């Protein structure tokens, strides 16, 4: 019978398919040792798959940064107050803010046994800065003399070394900058300034999958989209030596799934609790709940090329700022995950000051008055652009409601489906009136929140704010010979910003994470990352 023949054929195909998939199961054996597949003494945290290969200068999203920071140690780091702590460097000194002398601690080694020398730093930085290598963070080296030779705006590099970097001896090198940068040593704490061992240059691609660093942890394995495992480095000599035996960075598809695992004890630490679990996480986690502010700010940024805000009187923006009830919104809509802003810089950075103003205080009557004095919002209507994949819809709606109620200006959220679309509209000057801006500190100095956002030529100045006087003030502040003077200069800039309103600061971020009963001593650093080296296993 024909039918019966094809039935056999079909059954055979199913058996083959089943056998094929069952065979693939062999690789899972390792994880079956214990339910969570975690070696004793290790700490697990919900850090997802890094976007890119693990190369320090090519990573700036948080997942990758977590792993990079565990594997590599730069010259210096910051404590919780934002003060410099020397890690691999003995000292970083300057007399004129232009030439910096770096002395390394001796005896440091990469995980493969190679010594960390001045040459390791200089070679790495030259490679990072070279345009040929397409490193995402290459512009961080732009202060160094000779950067333009290795990273011209167009065409091939003229040299493969920056003239500003000179090796003096094994543990000393000097950095000569193009101009004075009084806060340059603070920039050196950014993960991008990590050194590289010689094996890197043989095969950068392979290195990115299996990095060899000089940090508190050694690379163990990377099972893509599942987990990355690093083990404590017993020879580490820095102040942040690991207090646990290793870390597992585990990938989770959703915040909710990770949260479920923390509550049930299959995961040790969660970095951020999802909105649905926020109301109950303190109850669920008890002492393990983490709530701490860090150096990051959310603002509404007017697009100064838009119909709405072209040649706008800053008074109108001040009025809009006063129409937003930050207290109520952070408490209710945002579940206390934010702290209302009182200036353009968060409190954790050097130079944060009390601006002595009521522009950030809710005051409907004065808000209305200021907007009228400033000539009102054109067409009495404005939009706030946001990406709807990031949980912003709720607060944007609340802010609009607040503005509408207080001033009668019609305010509507302008949702973009996801972050790439949102960014594209910003880059192409297509923002209708305002967009949602966010900024996390790269280094804890007020400069980072002012120059990178509001200087006419700043890459992240997507509102296209431009003011000659303010540019000039920033350039003057950069010429200062000491950090203190530079910070003061930028404090003056900040006061001036209040008169010009390049953005409406809304609130500072807080981290709302938590850990399970298996671990202790989970602290948060200034830019909101959990300090994994200090975590102890009970």
């Amino acid at each position, binding site marked *: 019978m024909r039918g019966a023949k094809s039935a056999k054929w079909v059954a055979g195909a199913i058996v083959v398919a089943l056998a094929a998939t069952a065979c693939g199961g062999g690789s*899972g054996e390792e994880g079956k040792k214990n339910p969570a597949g975690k070696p004793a003494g290790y700490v697990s945290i919900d850090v997802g798959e890094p976007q890119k290969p693990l190369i320090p200068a090519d990573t700036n999203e948080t997942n990758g940064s977590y792993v990079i920071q565990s594997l590599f140690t730069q010259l210096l780091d910051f404590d919780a107050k934002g003060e410099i702590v020397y890690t691999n460097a003995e000292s970083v000194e300057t007399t004129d803010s232009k030439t910096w002398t770096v002395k390394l601690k001796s005896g440091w080694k990469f995980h493969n046994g190679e010594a960390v020398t001045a040459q390791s730093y200089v070679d790495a930085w030259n490679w990072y800065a070279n345009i040929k290598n397409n490193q995402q963070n290459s512009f961080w080296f732009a202060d160094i003399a000779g950067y333009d030779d290795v990273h011209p705006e167009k065409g091939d590099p003229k040299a493969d070394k920056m003239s500003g970097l000179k090796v003096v001896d094994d543990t000393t090198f000097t950095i000569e900058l193009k101009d004075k940068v009084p806060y340059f040593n603070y920039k050196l704490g950014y993960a991008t300034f990590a050194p590289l061992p010689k094996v890197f240059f043989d095969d950068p691609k392979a290195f990115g999958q299996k990095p060899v660093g000089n940090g508190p942890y050694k690379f163990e394995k990377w099972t893509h989209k599942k987990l990355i495992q690093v083990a404590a480095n017993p020879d580490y000599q820095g102040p942040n030596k690991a207090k646990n035996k290793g870390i597992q960075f585990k990938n989770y598809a959703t915040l909710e799934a990770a949260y479920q695992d923390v509550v049930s004890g299959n995961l040790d630490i969660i970095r951020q609790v999802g909105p649905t679990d926020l109301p109950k996480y303190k109850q669920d986690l008890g002492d393990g709940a983490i709530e701490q502010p860090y150096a990051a700010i959310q603002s509404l940024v007017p697009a100064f090329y838009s119909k709405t805000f072209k040649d706008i009187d800053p008074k109108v923006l001040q009025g809009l700022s006063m129409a937003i009830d930050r207290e109520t919104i952070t408490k209710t809509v945002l579940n206390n995950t934010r702290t209302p802003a009182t200036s353009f810089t968060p409190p954790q950075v050097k130079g944060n000051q009390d601006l002595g103003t009521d522009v950030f205080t809710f005051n409907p009557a004065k808000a209305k008055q200021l907007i009228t004095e400033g000539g009102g919002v054109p067409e009495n209507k404005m939009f706030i652009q946001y990406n709807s994949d990031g949980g912003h819809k709720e607060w944007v709606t609340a802010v609009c409601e607040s503005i509408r109620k207080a001033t009668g200006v019609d305010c509507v959220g302008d949702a973009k489906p996801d972050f*790439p679309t949102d960014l594209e509209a910003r880059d192409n000057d297509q923002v209708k009136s305002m967009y949602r801006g966010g900024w996390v500190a790269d280094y804890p100095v007020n400069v980072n929140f002012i120059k990178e956002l509001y200087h006419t030529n700043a890459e992240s100045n997507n509102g296209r704010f431009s003011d000659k006087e303010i540019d000039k003030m920033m350039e003057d502040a950069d010429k200062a010979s000491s950090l203190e003077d530079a910070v003061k200069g930028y404090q003056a800039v900040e006061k001036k910003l209040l008169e010009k309103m390049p953005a409406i600061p809304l609130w500072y971020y807080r981290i709302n994470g938590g850990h399970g009963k298996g671990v202790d001593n989970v602290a948060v650093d200034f830019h909101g990352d959990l300090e994994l080296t200090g975590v102890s296993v009970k």
Partner: protein
Amino acid sequence: MGRYVARRLLQMIPVFIGSTFLIFAMMFALPGDPVRALMGDQAFDPAVVEAIRHDRGLDLPLWQQYLKYLFELVQGNFGTEIASQRPIADIIAQAFPVTIRLTLFAFTFTVVVGIGLGIIAGLRPESVRDRGLLALTLVLISMPSFVLGYLMQYLFAFKWGVTTPTVQDSESFGDLLLPAIVLGSLSLAYVARLTRTSMAENLRADYMRTAVAKGLPRRRIIGVHLMRNSLVPVVTFLGTDIGNLMTGAIVTEGIFNVQGVGDAIYEALFRREGATVVGIASLIVLVYLLASLLVDLLYAVLDPRIRYA
């Protein structure tokens, strides 16, 4: 039969090319540049963005990019991801077996339990157990899978503590049990109802009366005469359902943190990794095509009146 299969297989080529091109074009049309998105909203150097775009051929027009992609695909090369710089074949090889296992698991569950329930109810239409099944399946059909997923997670993991809330090892069958049940339950409801209705109708058919009149044993009447005819619509449904289960796994995989196709395609979409999306989607298209071919062939087994030249 052989010629029929060959013709069907050849027909897959234009369908495959057409669907990959459509998906490719859609990814191209999406706003948002993957390389620019990599940089986030922190500062970056536009020259680096341009250089990366040029290196990956992303600055070429759509048709050139597509031809290049197709040319490489024919040689078995799925391409490389923009951000992670990993071969897409690796990503697929990692995600597919997990989802296939989950799907097969859910599928088996659907077939065994669904048809079983359908038979029990269909043999006694309008009885209490029939009404009970209709009510149960109505609940399953109207409940979105994420509700069911969270409910099961809550009950089994937190209330009774029999399992972990999420899948710890995407390759272990035991761990996949719960997500497979959640994934299969919607189709299960349809399968049960289809089987039930189809059986209830055929019970009244002439050939059934003949079989009974001939004095055949009851097992043979139900097992061969009734079942065979009643299963045609069910098999049709099951065939398309394999593809549905694979794509439907996206939500379930998210809830239970299974690192399968759903997870991979969601992430790729979000990061505008066009080649990854096309690669995974075209494989799902292939699964659909093969499943429908299988269904067509099964018809002949179930109903000998259907013949393929």
